[in-house]
């Protein structure tokens, strides 16, 4: 015990130094703004200074984007936290909640400091691989409209995207739940957000990204709200984590069932609720496209939940609660990239696929492969995300956005493009995550010790117990 504490304590000094550096840079960034004169550096918040740009802010679109941001926030805290937390054992529930809360804190700061610049900043080098640091510490990201949002404040777009950057690494928790040490987890998460997430976001969503529909010179992968960037990315990382960390003690024969399924249901409800902001908010406006995204999100999710229940009924004898909520999440995952491109028919098909394909994977294939993806982060987000990204290339209909068509509407090239984007993301996310795991593990040892796993992460990592037994 002594030894371990000492070995951890050595990280406090660097952490404090890092914090100090963080503050200093933040302060100097802010000072720079001022020295440069406000109007230029932090483009004016005073309406009268820039009437044209100011009048461009649409209050309805802004209201919807801010609302959507709050909705995406609640997906992670406490939505995903509860969804995952309810499924683990009693002795580990706090560790999962803590991981979600800590990602919220850490990645939000990383995003403000670096992530937003790397992801959405002007392309560095013109290859569409990564953004410049011009917007680091939000320099120049102000109250007026920005390049991504003609009618809403740039800051609103930034914070909306921040919530995406937060939830993506949080999804990975499902893979290493119940057996990771906390400090290495923090380090891994920060690195992953910076080195894996930010580039993919840049590729697919930035004006200069090499896979972006906003980049006139790029092949345009369609990903309305994050099928590749969020779900395939997180899903592949999850697979890498599950493989690298190995199985939990006792897996698979001696695992307890979910310790609190109602928590998982609350979490799933909040995920579904928040996902309306995730997908419909991605329209960046309160318009018909947002309404369409809202509708297809709901329909695909309902279809997937129902389909999963039917699969359960056929193969396991009874439809289960865990099944319906897992199916619903798979449906949400799958419709995410498609939500701005498909109509109701497409969404029913995508939802049905999301109820069948991940089901088969989680129920039949995974047990044979034998790795331990504790809460099926890969099975649901990886497999579901791949299905969704490909299906977007099938079902995209010009009835929704007239310039975007999939294979079934006469545009096979788009499907090929989707395959390419999926393949690139799969390789990138898996390989880079694995390398990161090896590196972080070399310094810190990621996996909890046998005794820590036995006693539970709540007590050993956080000195807390979730519930009192006698009080």
């Amino acid at each position, binding site marked *: 015990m002594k030894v371990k504490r000492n070995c951890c304590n050595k990280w406090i000094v660097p952490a404090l130094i890092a914090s100090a550096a963080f503050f200093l840079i933040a302060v100097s960034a802010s000072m720079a703004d001022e020295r440069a004169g406000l109007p230029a550096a932090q483009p004016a918040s005073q309406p009268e200074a820039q009437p044209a740009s100011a009048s461009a802010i649409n209050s309805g679109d802004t209201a919807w984007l801010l609302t959507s941001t709050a909705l995406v926030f609640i997906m992670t805290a406490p939505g995903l936290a509860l969804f995952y937390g309810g499924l683990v054992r009693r002795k580990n529930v706090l560790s999962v909640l803590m991981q979600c809360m800590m990602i919220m804190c850490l990645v939000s700061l990383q995003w403000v400091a670096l992530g937003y610049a790397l992801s959405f900043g002007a392309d560095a080098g013109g290859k569409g691989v990564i953004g410049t640091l011009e917007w680091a510490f939000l320099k120049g990201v102000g109250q007026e409209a920005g390049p991504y949002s003609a009618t809403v404040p740039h800051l609103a777009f930034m914070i909306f995207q921040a919530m995406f950057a937060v939830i993506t690494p949080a999804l990975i928790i499902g893979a290493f739940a119940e057996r990771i040490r906390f400090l290495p987890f923090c380090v891994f998460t920060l690195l992953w957000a910076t080195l894996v997430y930010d580039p993919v976001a840049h590729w697919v969503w930035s004006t200069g990204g090499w896979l972006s529909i906003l980049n006139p010179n790029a092949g345009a992968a369609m990903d309305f709200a994050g099928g590749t960037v969020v779900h395939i990315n997180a899903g592949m990382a999850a697979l890498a984590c599950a493989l690298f960390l190995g199985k939990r003690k006792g897996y*698979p024969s001696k*695992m307890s*069932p*979910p310790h609190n399924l109602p928590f998982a249901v609350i979490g799933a409800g909040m995920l579904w609720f928040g996902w309306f902001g995730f997908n419909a908010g991605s329209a960046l406006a309160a318009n018909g496209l947002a309404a369409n995204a809202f509708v297809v999100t709901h329909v695909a999710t309902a279809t997937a939940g129902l389909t999963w229940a039917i699969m*359960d009924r056929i*193969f*396991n*004898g*009874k439809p*289960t609660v*865990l*099944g319906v909520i*897992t199916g619903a999440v798979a449906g949400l995952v799958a419709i995410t990239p498609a939500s701005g491109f498909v109509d109701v028919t497409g969404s029913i098909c995508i939802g049905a696929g999301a109820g069948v394909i991940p089901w088969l994977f*989680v*129920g*039949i294939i995974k*047990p044979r492969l034998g790795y331990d993806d504790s809460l*099926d982060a890969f099975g649901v987000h990886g497999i579901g995300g791949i299905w969704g990204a490909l299906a977007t290339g099938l079902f995209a209909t010009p009835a929704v956005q007239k310039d975007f068509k999939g294979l079934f509407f006469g545009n096979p090239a788009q499907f090929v493009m989707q395959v390419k984007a999926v393949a690139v993301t799969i390789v990138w996310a898996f390989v880079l995550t694995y390398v990161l795991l090896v590196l972080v593990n070399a310094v810190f040892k990621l996996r909890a010790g046998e005794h820590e796993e036995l006693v539970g992460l709540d007590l050993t990592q956080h000195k807390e117990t979730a519930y009192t037994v006698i009080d």
Partner: protein
Amino acid sequence: MKYIIAIIQPDKLEDVLAKLEEKEIHLVTVTSVMGRGRQKGIAEVYRSHKEAGSLLRKVKLEIAVNEAFVQPAIDAILGAARSDNIGDGKIFVLDLPRVIRIRTGEEGTLAIG
């Protein structure tokens, strides 16, 4: 004195307590337990992972009584907890050489009631 331990079906608890009351046996300690017996549990399924589900919710009663109340207690439990179905449970009777009432420090048959 005897220390009676009875394992019963949870939904019989109210009936058993009422029947014991009738026999003037007011003092009981109740615990929520899980039991494995002849009654087969229903297999549970979580994402296609099957759990044997061998443990079922049961309720344990502990009743310390003087000799005169042993048979009445057993009769009360048998009367109220029996449904003739597998899973009805068991009654165990242990010897109880010594009892102390915490409030008064009294001992023995005086203290038990």
